[in-house]
Structures are given as structure tokens and as C-alpha cells.
């Protein structure tokens, strides 16, 4: 939190804003990248969303009240930007966002930036069958090890609901992986 406070005050000051912002990006770019990547699947889309996320953070730093952690706030922006991007893409091709995501997963086998094995691919396919929020919960818990407390701030959902959602997601994925 102390680190947070210092960074926030430097971000709010016009003189130190740019250097503070660069520091912020260096700190969080990888975590945000992988979080976004799990939602939009392709690297190029992730790159777009990541940049948009940081630009939004830069423009809105004065609106950050400090009620949550800086990272939670950025994570939330990244999540919203990623889902918006998914929906926009889907609309462009006149398909649902679920279909868009399914297509993106199916393209993974020919994706240069995917070197997963058969099981890893199947897991991605299983995750894509879950409702959007459940996918977020599963990814954030399973791959990112985010605490339910922090997840609650990011997804603005109670910890209890998140725990239930995660367990349900695991069951569905198990069922999918053992079905073929």
C-alpha cells in the first residue's frame, strides 16, 4: 500500500507523471498481458487491449479514489477492455462472443504464439465452454493464483460467490476433459 501511495501521488503530479507511469507499466505489464491474453486468446488482440488499458489508466489516474489497490483497479480496467474487445470483434463478424472465442481457440493449433500440447489445448477448449465470468474466475484462480479477496475487488463480486463459481468451473472442465 505504501508503494502504491507513493506511486499514486507521483502519477497525479504533472511533473512526475510520465516517469511514474513508465514505472507502473514496467511493474504490471506482464501480469496484465497474460490476464488479457487468456480472455482474447490471440497475441495481436492482447497487444491492442494492453495498450488501451494503459492509456486508460494514464488518462484516468485522477479518478482513482484509492479505495482498492492500484493493481485491482488496473486489472478491472484490463478485464473490461478485453471483454469489450471480444464483443466488438464478434459484432464485426456478426457472431456471438462465445462463437468468436471458440473460433480463436480453434485457431490455436496454427498459432505461432501457442506451443501448448494436446492437453493444454483441450483445457483451453474446456475453459471456452464456461460462461464469461466463470472463465475469469477460473483463470485468475487456477493460473494467476489471485486471492479471492483481491478477486472480489476486481470482479466486484462477493468472495463466497467467487468460490462457488470456481468450484463449478472445475467440475465442468473435469467433465469436458473426461468426455472424449
Amino acid at each position, binding site marked *: 500500500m505504501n508503494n502504491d501511495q507513493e506511486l499514486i501521488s507521483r502519477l497525479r503530479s504533472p511533473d512526475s507523471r*510520465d516517469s511514474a507511469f*513508465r514505472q507502473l*507499466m*514496467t511493474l504490471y*505489464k*506482464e501480469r496484465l*498481458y*497474460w490476464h488479457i*491474453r*487468456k480472455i482474447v*486468446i490471440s*497475441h495481436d488482440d492482447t*497487444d491492442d487491449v*494492453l*495498450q488501451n488499458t*494503459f*492509456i486508460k489508466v*494514464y488518462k484516468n489516474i485522477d479518478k482513482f479514489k484509492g479505495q482498492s489497490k492500484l493493481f485491482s483497479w488496473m486489472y478491472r480496467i484490463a478485464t473490461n477492455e478485453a471483454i469489450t474487445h471480444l464483443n466488438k470483434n464478434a459484432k464485426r463478424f456478426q457472431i456471438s462472443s462465445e462463437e468468436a472465442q471458440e473460433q480463436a481457440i480453434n485457431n*490455436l493449433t496454427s498459432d505461432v*504464439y*501457442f*506451443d*501448448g*500440447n494436446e*492437453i*493444454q*489445448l483441450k*483445457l*483451453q477448449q474446456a475453459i471456452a465452454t464456461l460462461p464469461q465470468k466463470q472463465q475469469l474466475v477460473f483463470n485468475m484462480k*487456477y*493460473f494467476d*493464483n489471485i486471492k479471492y479477496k483481491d478477486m472480489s475487488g476486481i470482479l466486484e463480486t462477493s468472495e463466497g460467490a467467487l468460490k462457488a463459481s470456481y468450484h463449478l468451473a*472445475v467440475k465442468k*472442465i*473435469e467433465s469436458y*476433459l473426461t468426455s472424449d
Partner: protein
Amino acid sequence: MNKKFNITKTGFKAPENYFESVEDSVFSKIKSENSLKSVKGSGYKIPEGYLDTVEENILNKLNNETKVVSLFTRKNLVYISGMAAAILILFAIFIKNNNPLTEELDYQVVEAYILEQDINTYELASLLTDEELSDMTLEIMDDAFDEEDMEDYLLENVNIEDIIEQ
């Protein structure tokens, strides 16, 4: 750490050296957005006081313009009925001219036709019905014929023997 599916990584990977360029890419994007914002106006200018008078000008134009007229005005109806009448008249004339049977055919024309075509009295009689024949009266009998003219005609044109024999 509970890795239920024995998978710890997603399989996704980023391009080599990608993360090194993130900060610079973001800054250049912010700068280009800012430079666009800093361009004040398009460079176009409008005449002084133009915007003050534009509403009045438009309202004046609207008032002076002929309004949208309905197709069915009195004037249009007069024109249309006039045209319709002319067409009907033309039609009537055309049809009338095509009809060879008119009641009032000039008798002199008919007389000339009969004489020219050398139609004899028997042919003419065959065209008439019995009723018409009996109704027919020789109107010319009462006047016109002079006895002397009759006598001359008979002497010249008729063989007396033919009549006696009949």
C-alpha cells in the same frame, strides 16, 4: 499449489522481446493522441457574422418557397378532365370514321354508284325484303313524268312486241 489438471501453464507465449517495447509503444500512442487534440480547428474560416444570420436566411427561404402541392388541385383536375375529354372525342371520331355504315349516305352518291356498277332492277329487288317491297310506293309517279316524255321513252327503248308477248 493445487494443480488439479496437472497443467501449470496455458501454452500461450509472447513474441521474443515483446515486453521490452510495451512502455515505448504506449507512450508514442499517448503522444499521437495528444498531438491530434492540440490541433485547434480545421483551418477553415467562415465570414464574420455568418452564424448570426443563418437562421433568419433559412426561415426566409422556407417562407418564399412554393409549398409542396397536392397532386389533386382544382387546376390539375381541370387539366386532367380536359385531356380526358379530348381523348374521348378523338376516340369517338376515330371509331365513327372507321364505321362504314352511316345512316345518312348522300342519295346522289348511291344513285351514281348504282348506275356506274350497272346494277339492274332485279338485283336491287333481291336486296329488299317482301315487306319493304310492298311498302314501297313510286312517289315519282304523281308528278314529274310528262305523258309525252313517257311516250318518247317507250318508243325508243322498248320493243312493243316484248310487252305484248308478256
